[in-house]
């Protein structure tokens, strides 16, 4: 590690400490921090719920980071793919009467194929182009998805009532059953993808391509096929994320934008293209968001600011993120 590298890591750590203490300081200012037993129970619940939520964030952020790592493309439609996953689940639940988790069995292959098609039709043409091209293409795709969704589903907020009971985890911490289930699902799916990337031939080829596409090509890896698989997996992860989001929160066609930005923030925080980084980043963002919403009045706006703020400061302090991925 070079000296400047170590220094930026310390700076980043210092920044994160500040970022996490800020909600407490503001909370003290506004009197939302009470330091009694009940409040500590809230705090514990919020942190625990944050971790659960972070697992889901991390999962769909991995999709974004995979595409970015392998092709250097920012998929500005990633959040819309999450939104698509939510609607697919909703349709399966209300019209076909399929259990949201069971629905994954057929939504994920569909999503994978959609990803492959997306890669063939659009993304192959923008690999290696200036960033604006990819940004515009995927943004246009996102817009199209939003408006098609509005045409079909209107802008009404939808929810899926699923496993609404609360579970008493410890004496003080109680969370929704749906949150626990989502977390378990997200962790299993993330772990499966991780094992796939780590140990399978194809997974290794994907990682090799992310490190250096040219070298991978020389080593006989069919880079075109890697791109197809990568985008397939990425879209599948987004759709899985959508399914897990849909059983916890309301959604409408425009909610995707928020997920895109959260995923950006997570990818930047963890280090682009870095799998474990995305997992850590996901947990950190979700916990921070929950702390903010617990302690800062005018919650939603402040929660959004948390993601943007985290993203921008990490970019400025250490563009490689926690994992110190070197600038391309």
């Amino acid at each position, binding site marked *: 590690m070079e000296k400047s590298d170590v220094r930026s890591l310390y700076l980043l750590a210092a920044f994160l400490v500040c970022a996490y203490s800020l909600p407490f300081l503001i909370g003290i200012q506004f009197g939302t921090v009470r330091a009694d037993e009940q409040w500590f129970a809230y705090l514990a619940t919020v942190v625990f719920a944050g971790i659960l939520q972070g697992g889901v964030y991390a999962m769909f952020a991995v999709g974004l980071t995979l595409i970015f790592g392998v092709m250097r493309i920012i998929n500005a439609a990633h959040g819309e793919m999450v939104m698509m996953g939510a609607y697919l689940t909703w349709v399966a639940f209300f019209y076909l009467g399929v259990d949201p988790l069971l629905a994954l069995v057929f939504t994920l292959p569909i999503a994978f194929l959609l990803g492959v098609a997306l890669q063939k039709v659009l993304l192959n043409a923008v690999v290696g182009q200036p*960033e604006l091209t990819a940004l*515009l*293409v995927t943004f246009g795709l996102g817009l*199209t998805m939003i408006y098609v969704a509005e045409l079909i589903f209107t802008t009404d907020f939808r929810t899926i009532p699923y496993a609404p009971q609360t579970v008493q985890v410890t004496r003080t911490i109680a969370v929704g059953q749906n949150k626990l289930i989502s977390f378990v699902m997200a962790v299993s799916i993330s772990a499966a993808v991780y094992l796939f990337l780590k140990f399978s031939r194809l997974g290794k080829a994907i990682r090799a391509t992310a490190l250096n596409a040219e070298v991978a090509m020389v080593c006989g890896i069919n880079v075109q096929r890697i791109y197809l698989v990568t985008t397939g997996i990425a879209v599948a992860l987004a759709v899985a994320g959508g399914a897990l989001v849909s059983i916890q929160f309301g959604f409408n066609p425009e909610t995707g934008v928020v997920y895109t930005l959260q995923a950006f923030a997570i990818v930047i925080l963890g280090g682009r293209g870095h799998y474990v980084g995305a997992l850590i980043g996901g947990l950190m963002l979700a916990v921070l968001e929950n702390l903010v919403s617990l302690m800062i009045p005018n919650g939603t706006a402040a929660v959004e600011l948390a993601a943007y703020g985290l993203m921008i400061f990490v970019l400025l302090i250490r563009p490689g993120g926690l994992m110190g991925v070197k600038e391309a």
Partner: protein
Amino acid sequence: MATHEHVRNVLLLAALAVVLAVLPPALSVYLKSFVMFTMMYVVLALSWNIISGFTGYTSFGHVAFYGIGAYTCAVLVADHGWHWISTLVVAAALAVVVAVAIGYPVLRLKGPYFAIAMLGTAEGTRVVVTVWDSLTHGGLGISFPSVENSLETYYAMLVVMLMTILVAYIVGHSRFGIRLNAIREDEGAAEVLGINATAYKLAAFALSAMFPAVAGGIQAYKVLYIDPPSVFFVQITIAMALMSMLGGKGTVIGPVVGAVLLYSAQELTWVNFPTAHLIAYGLFIIVIARFMPRGLIGFAIDRGWVRKGMVH
């Protein structure tokens, strides 16, 4: 470029100015506002092009400056009783200050990182404006005292557009401009050849922030009501980028042509196909970016109608 070409181009611009100046009496209210908004998009696309086309730093959050301009005008007029024209000067100055303050750290980032950081900056600015309700009235937005202003705003926008075109033209045919190009092509090599990239990028960024702020101010006064989602709308940034790309980014004429074409096309589809137009727009973005990233000017250059480069 030979002097006579500059003279010809300036005369062309003057002719355009005269035509647009005498036009309003012949225009319906609707057409007047249509021309005004077309001019506004010329301003936006040309300005975006200075930092992103000439200098190669893709600003994916340029709407921030437009929004700042709109809010400066609205707050000063509605809450402090200023004359709206004088607020435009403040809007321009504020945009330059913000551009330098943000640009100094953010312009160190490259490629997609800069693009994302600017996207975050714009969204962050929107959230701050929403939260800071003692100044901005938050999510409620700000209304202006209702007045008939279509002629005033038309002429104001005309003046701003002419200024923007002139500035872009001067930048685009000067060594300042090709030094920006050099930064776009290879920043490291440019620095080795004596170009203080940090200073040039900041100058380009400030310049590209100024006119959108003024346009935002005029627009706010024209529509008489603004709120954060409408003036910090991501799609305004997209429009700037897409218009530049459609005409040909990194040129002077490209963004002008792109803005006129795209805004007209949008207006036509919007009027005729109110539901389908948004979907069509999304698809249109995809098609332009996918199939003609070099824009119309690229076709013209390939066929030898237009010379390569900005300086000849």
